C-alpha cells in the first residue's frame, strides 16, 4: 500500500512553510500545478458547491496528470471531468451526484457494472459528509483519527474498513472513528488573497479551512489579488494565513461553472447540460477537447463563452463594515 493509498499515514513531524524558489508565491495556474501536483498525488480541490476551482481541475487535465487519488465531499462536475479525462486512480468521497441535475456519468461508468468490465477502473473509498469533514479535521488538527457518533445501524463500516471505533475512557461508550486525511496538495478558490497567500472567503465555507491545514501544500486561487492592507483591515474574515500557502494564482472566474458569492452566480444551465454531456463518452471527449485541452488557459476558456458576465455577474448586496478600533 503506497503512502497515498494509506489513509492512516502519519502527518509529517513538522510542516515547513512553502518557500518558492522565485521568492514570490504569485504564479500562473500552469506553474502552480507543475510545481505542486504530481502523478500519484493525493489531491483535494474543496468547496461545497461554492468556490470549486474548475480552473485548477482543467489545468491538471491539460498537464496529463495520472494516478491521482482525488478526495472531495462532493466530486461534482470537476472530478467527473478529471475522471473522464483519465487523471484519477481512486476517489475518496461522500456524495457523488450532479447537485440539482442528476448523475456524474463518467464516475458511474468507472464504478458500475460487473467485475472485469473494462470501463470500470476507479477505486473508491466512501464516507458520509461528516466522515469526510472529520477526516480533514483530524488531518488539520495533527491527530491520527477523529471520533464521532455515526455509522451505527448502517452498512458503511462494512463497505469501508477504514471506519473503526474507539471506547470513551470516561463513559465506556463506543464511538465511530475515521482516520486523518493529509493530502499532498489542497487547492482552494477564494474571493481574495494577497501575494503571500493570506486568503479571505465569505458565503459558504465548506471544509476548506480543514482541508488547507491538513495538507502538505496549498494552492490558493483568487478572484482578486489584493494588497495585504485589504486583508489586515478585516482579519476575522481570513480563512488561512499565507504561511501555509505555497502558490497564489490570480484567476478571475476560475470557479465557473461553480460560483463565487459576490462575484458571479452558479451556472446552473451548465450543470443541467453536463447530465447530457457526461452520459455520452463521445460528447464528454468533445467537451474536454474544446474547453479544456483546446484552450491554453482560463482566459481562453472564458473567451470561448463571452456571455458569462452578462448571464452570471453577481448583483450587489454589500454589507456594512465593522469597527476594529480600540
Amino acid at each position: 500500500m503506497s503512502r497515498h493509498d494509506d489513509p492512516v499515514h502519519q502527518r509529517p513531524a513538522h510542516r515547513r512553510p512553502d518557500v518558492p524558489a522565485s521568492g514570490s508565491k504569485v504564479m500562473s495556474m500552469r506553474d502552480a500545478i507543475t510545481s505542486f501536483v504530481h502523478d500519484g498525488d493525493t489531491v483535494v480541490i474543496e468547496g461545497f458547491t461554492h468556490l470549486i476551482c474548475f480552473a485548477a481541475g482543467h489545468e491538471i487535465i491539460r498537464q496529463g496528470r495520472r494516478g491521482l487519488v482525488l478526495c472531495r465531499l462532493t466530486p461534482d462536475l470537476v472530478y467527473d471531468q478529471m475522471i473522464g479525462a483519465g487523471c484519477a486512480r481512486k476517489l475518496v468521497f461522500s456524495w457523488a451526484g450532479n447537485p440539482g441535475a442528476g448523475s456524474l456519468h463518467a464516475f458511474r461508468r468507472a464504478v458500475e457494472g460487473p467485475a472485469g468490465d473494462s470501463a470500470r477502473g476507479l477505486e473508491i473509498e466512501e464516507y458520509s459528509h461528516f466522515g469526510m469533514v472529520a477526516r480533514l479535521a483530524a488531518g488539520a488538527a495533527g491527530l491520527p483519527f477523529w471520533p464521532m457518533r455515526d455509522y451505527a445501524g448502517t452498512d458503511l463500516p462494512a463497505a469501508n474498513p477504514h471506519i473503526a471505533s474507539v471506547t470513551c475512557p470516561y463513559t465506556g461508550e463506543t464511538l465511530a472513528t475515521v482516520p486523518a486525511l493529509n493530502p499532498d496538495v489542497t487547492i482552494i478558490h477564494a474571493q481574495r488573497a494577497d501575494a503571500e497567500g493570506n486568503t479571505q472567503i465569505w458565503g459558504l465555507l465548506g471544509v476548506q479551512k480543514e482541508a488547507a491545514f491538513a495538507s502538505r501544500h496549498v494552492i490558493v486561487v483568487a478572484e482578486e489579488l489584493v494588497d495585504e492592507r485589504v486583508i489586515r483591515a478585516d482579519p476575522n474574515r481570513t480563512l488561512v494565513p499565507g504561511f501555509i500557502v505555497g502558490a497564489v494564482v490570480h484567476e478571475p472566474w476560475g470557479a465557473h461553472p461553480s460560483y463565487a458569492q459576490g462575484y458571479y452566480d452558479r451556472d446552473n444551465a451548465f450543470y443541467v447540460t453536463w447530465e447530457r454531456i457526461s452520459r455520452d463518452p463521445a460528447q464528454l471527449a468533445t467537451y474536454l477537447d474544446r474547453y479544456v485541452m483546446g484552450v491554453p488557459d482560463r482566459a481562453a476558456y472564458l473567451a470561448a463563452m463571452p456571455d458569462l458576465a452578462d448571464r452570471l455577474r453577481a448583483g450587489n448586496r454589500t454589507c456594512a463594515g465593522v469597527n476594529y478600533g480600540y
Partner: protein
Amino acid sequence: MVTDASSGTRAAAASAGTGRPARYSPNEMMAVVAARELRNGEIVFVGIGLPNLACNLARATHAPDLVLIYESGAIGAVPERLPVSIGDPSLVTGSLMVCGMADVFQYLLQNGRIEVGFLGAAQVDRWGNINTTVVGDYAHPTVRLPGSGGAAEIATHARRTIVVARLSRRAFPASVDFVTSPGQRYHGTARSKPALPGAGPVKVITDRGVLEPDATGELVLTAVYPDVTAAEIASDVGWPLRFRDPIETLDPPTDADLALLRERLDPDKLFLKG
C-alpha cells in the same frame, strides 16, 4: 390496531376513483403533506428538492418561524429564489448565520440541536432503513447512486426524521440493498440498542400515502391520499404491508398551497414535475 393492508377494505372504502382530471399532482400532494409535518419554530435540517420545497411551503403558510438549516452551512436561510442545490448562493444571502461544515455536523447535528431531519431516498425498507448508495451489490453495482452525503448522520441525530419517496416495488423492498442511513431496526437489532440519539424515520411520505413505524419498528400504512386505496399501496410495497386502524385519509392540497407551489416556490416545475 394493525391489519394486513392488502385486504384493506376500510381504506378502499375511504377512497373512490372519480375519473376526473386531477386537480394536483402526486408530487404536489407529497410536498403539502410533508409541509404539514413541520411545526412553527422548529429547527429543520433540509435536503434539496422536495424537502426544501416542503419546508419553504410551511414557512410561507403555517410555520413562518421555521429555522431552515442546510448541511452546506446556511442557517436560517430565506431564499429569494428556488435553490437548485443545498449550496445555492440564495441560501446564504440574508441568512442568519453561515458556518463551516465542521460546525454544522458537530455543534448542530451531533450536539442534538436539530429537531427535524428531512431526507429523500432511493429505497426504503420494511424497517425504515434508507438506501441512497447502490442498487445491487456494493462492489459491482447495477446503479451507483450518490451515497450518503449527510443522510447517515441526519437519520442518526435529528430528533425525528421524515423521509420522502415515491412508491414503487423497486423503491420499497423488504430489505434495502445497502443501508446508507439507519432506520428502526438493523439485522434484527432495534435502533435503541446501539443507542442512536434520534428517533430515526418516524414518517415516510410517499406520493400515495404515509407509512409510520409501529412499536416494533416495522413500517405500516397510516394514511392514504384522496382516491388512493390501501390495497393499491400494498401492491407496490415489497413486504406484506399492514395498516393502522383506523386509516386516515388526508386532505388534498388547498388552493392556496397549490398557488404558492406553482407560482412562487417552483414556477419552473424543477422539483414538481410528475
